[in-house]
């Protein structure tokens, strides 16, 4: 019995020693932190070097993020995977799903100044942007779309996953529905017919920045609107054989790069095509006044303006609302805008700007399954001249 107790004592003391000692003798290595720190340093070095060498800009201008991803991957160890997200600029190819009838689709295209297949492409801040309409009008088949546009109300409850995928909904119409998604609140009162782009909030301000830069195409002998007045545009060739335009049959000739003031509003002439051989004679113009007054003859029903209002009347009503961070994961964008009519090219210019803004969230590489121990690097490219400010978010992780 005595011996048994001694052995029990020894066993207990050994258990205690073996239990406690590892706390004093164990030595935990922090290899993973070093690996991540060095990877993070490499990513930052690569982004700065790419930016300074001009390589980054060439990839962004061409819009091919997957090629940029391959280039960066070739510099990193083979066991590192990366994903790239660009914040603050639109995609180069914006896929639009029009959940609408054929007549509505044509109406939408006319609003955007699209009459021929060449009109789907336009130039913006040194980049070529292409609007690509999906071949389907069924919302269920719009998995590829970046932006889904429709006229009037839709029940979107079955398509909230689209928002989580970073897609955007744009609703054009005077009806009120899906108030939560589109951030709409009805309000009684007398609504002014004039509204301006709201510069007091960041996202509406950014749409305003697109608005003054984006061109809208006006074909020869057709009309465009400034506020509540329609004006005619004629493409001409001057005495020096240079392409020009004349407005409202006035004798003055205006050339590419000129800024014309019409009804107190500045219009910039961005391009003129006077060559009749292809049957397309047109001018690309932009309203470049940020405080331009959008006119709407029948502004009812009244929608209350808030910090997410794009077009705001002086008496606090809204003609266009936006929303973002809609889903619980903080994804998705939505815009509601009143129906101004297809002949209103000022509205078309704004709608184009809204489409550009709405597509931003999907400017990223094809996402794969990301390891939970990923590291993130942010790099800000500041905008100068024709370039624009944007933020690159690089996610990297070891696959083994």
């Amino acid at each position, binding site marked *: 019995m005595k011996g048994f107790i001694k052995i029990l004592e020894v066993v207990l003391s050994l258990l205690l020693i073996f239990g406690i000692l590892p706390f004093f*003798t164990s030595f935990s290595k922090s290899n993973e932190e070093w690996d991540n720190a060095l990877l993070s*340093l490499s990513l930052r070095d690569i982004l700065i070097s790419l930016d*300074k060498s001009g390589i980054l800009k060439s990839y962004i201008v061409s819009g091919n993020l997957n090629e940029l991803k391959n280039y960066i991957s070739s510099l990193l160890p083979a066991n590192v995977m990366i994903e790239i997200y660009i914040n603050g600029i639109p995609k180069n190819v914006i896929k639009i799903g029009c959940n609408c009838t054929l007549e509505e689709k044509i109406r939408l295209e006319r609003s955007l100044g699209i009459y021929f297949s060449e009109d789907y492409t336009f130039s913006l801040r040194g980049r070529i942007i292409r609007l690509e309409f999906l071949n389907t009008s069924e919302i269920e088949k719009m998995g590829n779309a970046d932006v889904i546009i429709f006229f009037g109300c839709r029940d979107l409850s079955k398509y909230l996953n689209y928002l989580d995928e970073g897609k955007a909904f744009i609703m054009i119409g005077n009806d009120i529905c899906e108030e939560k998604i589109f951030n709409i609140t009805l309000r009684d009162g007398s609504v002014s017919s004039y509204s301006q782009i709201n510069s007091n909030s960041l996202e509406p301000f950014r749409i305003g920045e697109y608005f003054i830069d984006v061109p809208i195409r006006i074909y020869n002998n057709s009309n465009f609107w400034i506020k509540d007045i329609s004006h005619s545009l004629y493409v001409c060739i001057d005495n020096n054989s240079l392409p020009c335009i004349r407005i409202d049959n006035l004798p003055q000739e205006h050339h590419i790069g000129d800024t014309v003031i019409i009804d107190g509003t500045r219009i910039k002439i961005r391009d003129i095509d006077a060559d009749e051989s292809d049957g397309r004679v047109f001018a690309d113009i932009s309203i470049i006044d940020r405080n331009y007054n959008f006119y709407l003859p029948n502004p009812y029903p009244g929608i209350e303006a808030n910090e997410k209002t794009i077009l705001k009347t002086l008496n606090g009503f809204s003609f266009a609302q936006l929303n973002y961070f809609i889903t619980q994961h903080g994804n998705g964008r939505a815009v509601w805008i009143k129906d101004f009519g297809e002949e209103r090219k000022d509205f078309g210019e704004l709608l184009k700007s809204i489409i550009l803004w709405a597509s931003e969230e999907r400017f990223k590489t094809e996402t794969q399954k990301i390891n939970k121990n990923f590291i993130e690097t942010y790099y800000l490219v500041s905008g100068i001249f024709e370039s624009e400010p944007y933020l690159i978010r690089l996610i990297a992780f070891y696959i083994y």
Partner: protein
Amino acid sequence: MKGQLNIDFILAVTLFIISILFISYRVMQNAFLMRSEVDKEQKRLLGYAISTLIIFDKGYPEYWNSLDNVQKFGLSLSPYTLSRDKLNAINNCSYENYNKIKNLLSVPIENDFLLIITNQYNEPIYKCGVEHKLREIIWVRRFAILDGNIVKINLGIY
């Protein structure tokens, strides 16, 4: 009975000796590992410090092109842009030039370095330093621009 060892005692002493041996082994093993890790960390920090100098510092004189007249080491023209002339001056450096660079960088006497600059496809374009077959090397990899192209700076510290 006197003069006879109790079996309990023998067992207890045996267990005690085993435990002491095991603990001693663990302590020595961890001490060795810790020493090795500290050594690696020092090499990483030294490598990082030198790589920063390579990428950000022009050296003195600013546009030096020969190790004969350089007073302060640095391989850049501007941050993240390397100078072709400076790289030519250190390429395939002799022992004498290696020691001069080591002295300019204040690398501790017990450490050595190996600098290999490769292009995007990992093909070496510049090299300077010494190689030891038996000593452990710790690599620090940085990136910079040379004549408009991205290059990889591989800096190994022994």
